[in-house]
């Protein structure tokens, strides 16, 4: 029995390890090819040299620097906006006697079922009429959604009412209570929400493609997809673009691994 267990454990470990290799292999391949200057895919090991020309080209001639800047601004703006708006809403929903709030909350939840394509076209027209095309606002404002509010409310439940009441009796003002008591208590959830928003905002493709048509306002995934042309593909260049798109979240992940993984886990288990 014991013998069986260890054999199973070894086999399991090997299988899971293999899967882990499969997970990163495409990304390693991506980086490897990005160092080649090749129009054909018959890449030999000898083609792999530290040739940075694809990166230099992408950054200097294809606006990747600008796109990186746009992506970072969009992501930072989105995270701030979503965090602030969702936390405020969750607090209002959970802790304040607003008439009709449950019905409104159910309405919010229902919007989570709406596929993005349904709202894409009217949103494009609205943004256009509001002269918000080719702005960061067009990318940031629609990031607020029911998920964040729902998630924050789940955590808001755990904020003890007694604490808030005691603070109020002590003469602590409304805003001060929100900022000094509520926000620190829901901080883990805020990190979760930030991770989700970061991932969504960074990887958004179709919406930025449609709404921000000027190249100076393009975000990384859009700029990346301009690299392929009709007749020839320089794989090295495309892979360099993909690597640049991947690099920023990856570095962040290395440093904030725990927050990423736990954030997603918390969101999943709670949500």
């Amino acid at each position: 029995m014991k013998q069986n267990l260890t054999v199973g454990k070894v086999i399991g470990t090997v299988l899971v390890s293999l899967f882990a290799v499969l997970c990163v292999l495409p990304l390693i391949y991506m980086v490897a090819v990005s160092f080649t200057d090749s129009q054909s895919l018959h890449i030999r090991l000898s083609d792999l040299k530290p040739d940075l020309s694809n990166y230099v080209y992408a950054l200097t001639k294809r606006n990747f620097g600008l796109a990186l800047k746009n992506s970072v601004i969009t992501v930072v703006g989105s995270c701030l906006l979503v965090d602030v708006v969702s936390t405020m809403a969750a607090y209002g929903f959970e802790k304040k006697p607003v008439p009709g709030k449950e019905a409104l909350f159910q309405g919010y939840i229902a919007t989570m079922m709406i596929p993005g394509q349904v709202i894409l076209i009217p949103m494009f027209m609205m943004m256009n009429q509001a002269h918000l095309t080719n702005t960061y606002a067009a990318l940031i404002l629609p990031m607020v959604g029911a998920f964040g509010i729902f998630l924050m409310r789940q955590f808001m439940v755990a904020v003890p009412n007694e604490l808030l009441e005691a603070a109020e009796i002590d003469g602590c003002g409304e805003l001060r209570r929100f900022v000094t008591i509520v926000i620190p208590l829901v901080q883990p959830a805020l990190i979760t929400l930030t991770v989700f928003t970061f991932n969504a905002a960074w990887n958004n493709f179709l919406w930025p493609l449609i709404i921000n048509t000027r190249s100076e306002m393009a975000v990384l995934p859009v700029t990346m997809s301009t690299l392929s042309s009709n007749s020839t593909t320089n794989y090295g260049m495309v892979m360099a673009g993909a690597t640049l798109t991947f690099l920023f979240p990856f570095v962040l992940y290395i440093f904030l691994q725990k927050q990423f993984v736990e954030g997603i886990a918390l969101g999943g288990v709670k949500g």
Partner: protein
Amino acid sequence: MQKTFFSRRRRQALIGGAYILPSFVLMFIFNVSPIFLSIFYSFTKYDMTAAPVWVGLDNYIKLSQNKYLGNVLTNTVQYVLITVPIQTILSLLIAAFIAGSLKNRYGSFLRSVIFIPVIASLIASAAVWDTMYKPDGGLINQFINLFGAPSVNFLGKKPTALPSVAAVSIWKSTGYYMVIYYAGIMNVSTEVQEAAIVDGASPIQRFWYITLPILKPITYMIVTLGIIGSFQVFDLVYKMTGGGPGRATLTVAYMIYSYAFQDKRMGYACALAVGLLVVILLIHLIQTLFFKERDAK
């Protein structure tokens, strides 16, 4: 006393309203009103330049005659049947194994590694996998050729095209679900587990009778997310296949995009989008009933 209580309550309600207001404005503008606009546009002929012209049910009648909708639906069902079971079971098994047998640094390292594809953008992932699938020198075919087997044209042949696109989706989401399952399993109280061990339950029995039922809400969520996601596949198709070969990988999202932004027929595209919404709501309904019924048993 009574009076001040009410005014306090009213004051609190007002303050609460102020907290909710920003979200309400944004949600109303960007999540709710577009739905009604979509429904409105779906009864019109609209090209973004001139004002919409009311055409009644024309778009829906046309839609009901669209012979390729069947293709798209079949594709989506196939896509769901490939991705959802594999990514759900795979992520569950990996999470359960790491939680049960690899609660050490190597285990947490593996979790971190398996999570990496989650942070890669879809459009970049599509470009990478597209390159790997190339029949002529792509990484996967180079590997296949090592064994003397001929190259497979993954994205160019009907039987393999859709599964190949689905594989990218599985690759990208397994880590995500695995992390959620892992947290769920860690939440299973150790007392229950230990009691089961005392009762002589094998690890598999424990997994089957204790862990799995507790994970049911998570599974429900993962399956729901997987199905909804499958109806909205766009980036992968846009970058890898354009819906081909033939219509093997055509999706609703891609169709909506091409009707709207290639042909400038917003009304018709909105009708398709509203149709998609109805289908998703129906599936959600069926799924809720299904899970409820199972609960009742």
